[in-house]
């Protein structure tokens, strides 16, 4: 299998997994499909010579985010029986359009050549390694990451705390 065929295969897998995430009736299975999308993305990123980001994607997105979704679903226990019935009845009506749109758009994109009149940036002569870039050029972002994580901790503490009795119920 040559390189391009492999790329086509992996991208097709990723797109299919994304569509599956949207179309699945069961939420739990949709989350699994999302994890598969992440795994396909990891493979594509390996092909794009981004191994560190790929591993990060695999552990955090396919791993941690799936866990977050799973626990949210578990905590919000499945919809009541009647609601589920309504849901499966009506959802196909709303979702059948997606494969149609995607098929049309896909063939249109294949058929028409998009003018590629732009030039890409020239490759760097001396490629800096990942660690230097992260610690030297993107320090501002690292400070940002610290801030985001601190905000996230407060978010989890504030939002996931069980409601105590003295708070208003409505």
């Amino acid at each position: 299998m040559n390189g391009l065929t492999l790329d086509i295969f992996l991208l097709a897998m990723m797109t299919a997994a994304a569509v599956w995430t949207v179309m699945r009736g069961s939420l739990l299975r949709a989350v699994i499909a999302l994890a598969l999308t992440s795994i396909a993305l990891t493979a594509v990123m390996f092909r794009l010579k981004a191994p560190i980001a790929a591993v990060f994607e695999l552990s955090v997105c396919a791993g941690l985010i799936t866990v977050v979704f799973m626990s949210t679903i578990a905590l919000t226990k499945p919809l009541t029986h009647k609601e589920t019935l309504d849901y499966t009845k009506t959802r196909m009506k709303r979702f059948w359009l997606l494969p149609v749109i995607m098929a049309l758009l896909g063939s249109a994109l294949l058929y028409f050549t998009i003018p590629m009149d732009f030039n890409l940036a020239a490759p760097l002569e001396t490629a800096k390694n990942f660690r230097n870039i992260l610690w030297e050029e993107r320090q501002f972002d690292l400070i940002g990451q610290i801030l985001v994580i601190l905000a996230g901790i407060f978010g989890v503490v504030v939002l996931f705390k069980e409601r105590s009795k003295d708070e208003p119920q409505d």
Partner: protein
Amino acid sequence: MTQETAQLLRLYIVFLPLIFVAGFYCVITTRNLIRTLLGLEILTKAVTLMLALAGYLTGRTAMSQALIITLIVIEVVVIAVAAGVVLNIFRHNNSLDARNIRSLKG
């Protein structure tokens, strides 16, 4: 642009819009709050892929990886906070149906 780059770019110009469409369709159509977040995740995956592609095509994979890692950290925090909000909405409404949210005047 070399022929190989052009070929690769062409390939991504077909697939990336498809993933974006799937994500946006999910966000717009669905009535389940958790599924809305799944749609957002699909969109984020598409953007991550775009960044990785940009790094590969311009030979700046170190830079693009640094950006992607920051992006993923932020993505996790946003999803965790959003999940917390959804959980609390469920505690009030006992339902995940977005139609119950429309009680707010637009």
